[in-house]
Structures are given as C-alpha cells and as structure tokens.
C-alpha cells in the first residue's frame, strides 16, 4: 500500500516531466526532462518490484541508473559537435 502511494507520486512526476519534454523551448530543457523520466523509470521499477514482492527488478534499475548518465552525456556531446567522437568531425562548427 505504501509502495502504491509512492508509485502514484512518481507517475504524477513522470507526467509533468513528459509535459516539459514536449514543451521545452530548448534542447537542454528536453534533455533535463528526459533525465527526470529516466530516474522516474528506475524508481517505478524498484517500487513496483517491492509492491509485487519481487525486488529482482532492482538489477534492471541499476543498469538504467548507469545508462541514464551515459545517455545524457552522449546527447550533450552530440548536440555540441554533431558527432560522438570522430576527431575529424570536431573541426565542424558546433551546434
């Protein structure tokens, strides 16, 4: 029951983050919202696992937590250079 209450809170936050991701004027707003959506997914995994008595979902949560930052950094780098690390592409104008 307590996990269900927390899941509802996370779902509300998730909806608001999706609204910002759709509305965000700059790419950074969308990226921030995407980061929040990723964290919400991890929390949903953990809370749902506890609610159903199967906390094995936490392994997936750890993977998502590691991928979340890598994804954010990769998208930031892509927006800056238009590439993900080929040295010859760095000469192009960023952004």
């Amino acid at each position, binding site marked *: 029951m307590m996990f269900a209450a927390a899941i509802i809170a996370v779902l509300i936050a*998730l909806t608001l983050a999706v609204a910002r991701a759709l509305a965000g004027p700059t790419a950074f707003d969308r990226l921030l919202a995407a*980061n929040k959506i990723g964290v919400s997914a991890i929390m949903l995994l953990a809370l749902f696992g*506890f609610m159903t008595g199967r906390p094995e979902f936490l392994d997936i949560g750890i993977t998502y937590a*590691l991928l979340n930052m890598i994804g954010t950094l990769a998208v930031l780098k892509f927006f800056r250079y238009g590439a993900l690390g080929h040295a010859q592409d760095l000469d192009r104008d960023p952004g």
Partner: protein
Amino acid sequence: MGQVIDLLSWAALLGGGFFYVVGAIGLNRMPDIFTRMHAVSVSETLGVGLMIFGMLLQAGFTLVAVKLIIIVLVMWTTGAVATHALARAALHDGEKPLLADATGALVATDPVSLFPELGVRLATPLKSEIVEEEPVESGAPEDAETLAEAGYGAEEEDANPDAERPDSADKEGQ
C-alpha cells in the same frame, strides 16, 4: 517493532514522493533552464534518497538492500555529474540565466559580464585549439628539414632509420 518500521517506511516513501512531485512541478513552473535544473536536482537527491530509504527499511539486511544502496549511490553521483555537464553545455550554447535587476524584474543576463573570470573557463577551447594545432603538426617535418639543411642533427636522423631498418627486416625474416 514491525509497526515502527512500517511507520518510518510510510513517512520516508510519502516524503520522498512529495519532494519528487515538487521537483517535477518546479520543472514546469521555473522560468529558465538553470532554475529548472535546480528543481530537478532536489528531487533527484532528496526525493529518490527518501524513497530508497523507505524501501531499505522494508528490505532488511538482505542482498536487496545492497542493491538499493548501489542504486542510490550511483544516482547521487551521476545525477550531479549530468546536471553539471548540462549546465555547462547550456552556458556554452549561449543560454543566459535570468537574474533580477535593481527593480526586481527578471532579465536574461550574460554571466560573463558579472564574473569576467568565468569567460576564461567558458571560453570554448575545442574547435579553435584543434584548428590551430593541425598546422603545427604538419609544420613539424618542415622544421626538421630546415634543421637538417642547416646541418643540425642531420647525421643522427639519417643514421637512426638505417640502423632500425635492418633490425626490422631481420625480425620479419625470422
């Protein structure tokens, strides 16, 4: 004892959910990207930390608790790093933070005008430095040739390749 733990778990989960929703509301209500980042950071540290703590109380001393601690530690470190990278990228891209002027109105202000030393740190080094470095690399052989023409170290440069080539040929032959 079980009821006390359940009560603490309720409080932690509800408190964490509260901070998490507040962060999401701030994400929608705040005026510019930097304040939105601030709102999300609060929810990602305090909200997630409290919710994980509530689950930790229910898990007890098990492997699940270790996994929960790993998740919260990873999230606390990577969240800060990602937020820092995001703020830096936004500043590089020319996003101007909204700052209050003398009358209290919000004005998009260039942070470099307030903190000149920030311009040195934000000066985008990547494109310009790489473009400048390439002629230096291509120019290095020319410098060596001019040195060789002038007679400096010409014998050594000629002697070393000759000394290396028979060795490599012997190794290939073997």
